[in-house]
């Protein structure tokens, strides 16, 4: 089945107000930014967003006014933002409800959803406030069928004799309505290939009822099948395939382009000011028709500087000061 469609259609069909969603990538790498901008453009609200360290896309969805609840491990962008500022401001203003986990806990929660088990165990967080302090009110947990009644729980290890582990934290599965993943290559049926680190994208996709794949290149199935060992997303979990060149910009896409340090530094500045940020959302996102138009506004001098060196996969000697 040919699942290709426009980004507009994919977002209209699979991301609705109040959807529970996750996006792929990590901090400044391979976020599905074109889809993030399209969600903001379409004015989606009340999203429940699940993230480990999904970075730039998380901050822009918050800044765009789309997110009501956030389960997250890390709201930063490396050296560009030790804490992402729209995230910080929304939490401090009380307009964004947050539930904190660790990166491994969030990864395990996506894995649990992918595996079809209600929870997975880990030693991570024993004795911490991640276990002790809960963010969402119990009424929300009880009234919302997409989230479990408990944030997590601690249990005694029932197996003795071959381990010194006495207790584990059980973290509950995540089941999103939709996961959006940006990849280097996909075919029309949804088989996809990620180059470089996959982060938790594959588990995020498998934990979701629906999956949107945006890709740099749409390729023939036979091209991907020549070396299936490199493919990671099976076609039967995918609902929409959307070719979007530079679909991860301003974050990096290994082998294609680097993150844009100029844009990210500019973003860090304007995200510190409410008025400047509102202008940015209006002019760059709501005021553009699609990702190509966004790119023209965000990188008026073009994208040559960040094009990846074919040998290294990133832009060598890029000025990142």
């Amino acid at each position, binding site marked *: 089945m040919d699942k290709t469609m426009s980004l507009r259609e994919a977002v209209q069909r699979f991301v609705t107000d109040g959807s529970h969603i996750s996006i792929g990538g990590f901090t400044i790498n391979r976020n599905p930014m074109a889809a993030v901008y399209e969600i903001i453009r379409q004015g989606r609200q009340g999203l429940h967003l699940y993230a480990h360290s999904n970075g730039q896309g998380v901050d822009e969805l918050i800044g765009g006014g789309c997110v009501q609840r956030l389960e997250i*491990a890390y709201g930063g*962008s490396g050296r560009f933002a030790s804490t992402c500022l729209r995230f910080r401001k929304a939490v401090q203003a009380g307009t964004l409800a947050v539930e904190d986990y660790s990166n491994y806990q969030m*990864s395990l929660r996506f894995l649990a959803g992918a595996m079809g088990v209600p929870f997975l165990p880990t030693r991570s967080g024993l004795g911490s406030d991640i276990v*002790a302090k809960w963010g969402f009110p119990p009424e929300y947990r009880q009234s919302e069928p997409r989230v479990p009644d408990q944030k997590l729980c601690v249990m005694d290890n029932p197996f003795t004799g071959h381990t010194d582990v006495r207790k584990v934290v059980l973290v509950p599965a995540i089941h999103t309505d939709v996961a959006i993943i940006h990849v280097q290559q996909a075919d029309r049926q949804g088989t996809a290939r990620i180059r*470089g680190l996959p982060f938790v994208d594959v588990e995020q996709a498998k934990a979701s009822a629906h999956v949107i794949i945006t890709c740099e290149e749409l390729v023939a199935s036979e091209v991907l099948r020549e070396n299936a060992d490199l493919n990671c997303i099976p076609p039967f979990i995918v609902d929409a395939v959307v070719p979007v060149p530079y679909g991860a910009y301003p974050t990096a896409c290994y082998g294609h382009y680097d993150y844009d*340090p100029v844009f990210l530094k500019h973003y860090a500045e304007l995200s510190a000011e409410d008025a400047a940020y509102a202008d940015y959302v209006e002019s760059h996102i709501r005021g553009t028709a699609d990702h190509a138009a966004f790119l023209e506004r965000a990188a008026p001098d073009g994208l040559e500087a960040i094009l990846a060196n074919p040998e290294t996969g990133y832009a060598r000697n890029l000025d990142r000061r």
Partner: protein
Amino acid sequence: MNYTPKEMMAIAASRTIRNDDIVFCGTGISMLAAMAAKHISAPESVIFFETGAIDSRLAELPLAVGDPRVMYRTAVNGSLLDSFATMQNRTTGKRVVGILGAAQIDPYGNLNSTVIGDYARPKVRFSGSGGAADVASFVDRTIIFMQHEKRKFVSRLDYLTSPGWLDGGDSRHKQGLCRGGPAMVITNLAVMGFDPQSHRMFLQALYPGVAAADVVANTGFSIDATRCVPLAPPSAEELRVLRDVCDPQRLILG
């Protein structure tokens, strides 16, 4: 003094890395420390990132652990699940040195990187755990980088993100954390250790030119300074590697 406190911090950490260590690091000084160790004293140590990159070549300095520069010519490009499993694993976890930072630290090496103020409505919101709580829970040796300020060295954390020795003594073990715990804290002034019994922080080694009183004055809780020794300054060779090999653009050293 022909070196900066940042350079001293990186060198102090790099000296503790051994040849068969697997070094978990973030970006910033921790990465410089790991890179310096590989070039000086621990050539076979392996650097890995929570994002899943194992034994990255680091031809250029990454500015985030998700930077594509961590993916180049690695041994394996795994996932986050793989990297944290390496730390929780009973065999490999014992060899992992984790390097962390935080907004606040308490006398038992517990870390806060989540909020200042009340969790439900914080005065300041930070990034959150990321992988820090995982590393702190799993690995055998944790090294913590901090700026030495009273408001950062506090008696009681606003939020305990990453478990250290918890309430000291055997409380970490009792909570179910059967391995690991903080080994040292490295600041712009000194190196702190943890007492083997009480697991309370003490002043272990002072940088050249720093007095014990400076450390006491910048620590928000009482700290034992009686066991303190001087730390050797960076050697010329250590500085050369750090500056010319690891960070020639001074992206991190500033």
